């Protein structure tokens, strides 16, 4: 495993909820990341965020890690959940609340 891949694996493993995004929760740098943050804030579950713009290795590596071409990416309990569109669908159907609330 490359350095980036093992760093990602560690982040995903050690944080219950982690969002890889562009920018920070306070200053998201992309509409999709902004939408993902809005959903997480609305649900009120504590989460860790990783700014991929501040780390090019992670930015490239996360796409390979999940075989997913875009950012943001949400991971819960070590599992890839999806990007902002899937988060929105799951939020609207109540699935995301359930997933995050399970033992958040």
């Amino acid at each position, binding site marked *: 495993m490359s350095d980036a891949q093992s760093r990602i694996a560690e982040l995903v493993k050690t944080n219950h909820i982690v969002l890889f995004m562009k920018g920070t929760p306070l200053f998201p740098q992309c509409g999709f990341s902004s939408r993902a943050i809005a959903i997480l804030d609305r649900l009120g579950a504590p989460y860790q965020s990783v700014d991929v713009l501040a780390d090019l290795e992670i930015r490239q590596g996360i*796409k390979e890690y999940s*075989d*997913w*071409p*875009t950012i943001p990416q949400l991971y819960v309990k070590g599992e*890839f959940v999806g990007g902002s*569109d899937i988060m929105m669908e799951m939020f609207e159907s109540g699935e995301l609340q359930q997933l995050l609330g399970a033992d958040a």
Partner: protein
Amino acid sequence: MAMAASEIERLIKQAIPDAEVTIRDLAGDGDHYAARVVSSSFEGMSRIRQHQAVYAALEGRVGGELHALQLETAVPNSETNQ
């Protein structure tokens, strides 16, 4: 970099022949699209797999040439197909 909506639709249908594709140009700039793709081939696939199938159809353009593609996938006539 811009990409025509017709090209997005063509690529998706090329890979997923039964797909019903609806595309909206969100900003009118040929660079921010929303696509809804309905196909029976999605049956039994997780949402992640469904989206990955569409991304694969677009042959690496998503996240590159095609920056913003809001994606929604569904199986025809399913309960969750709103």
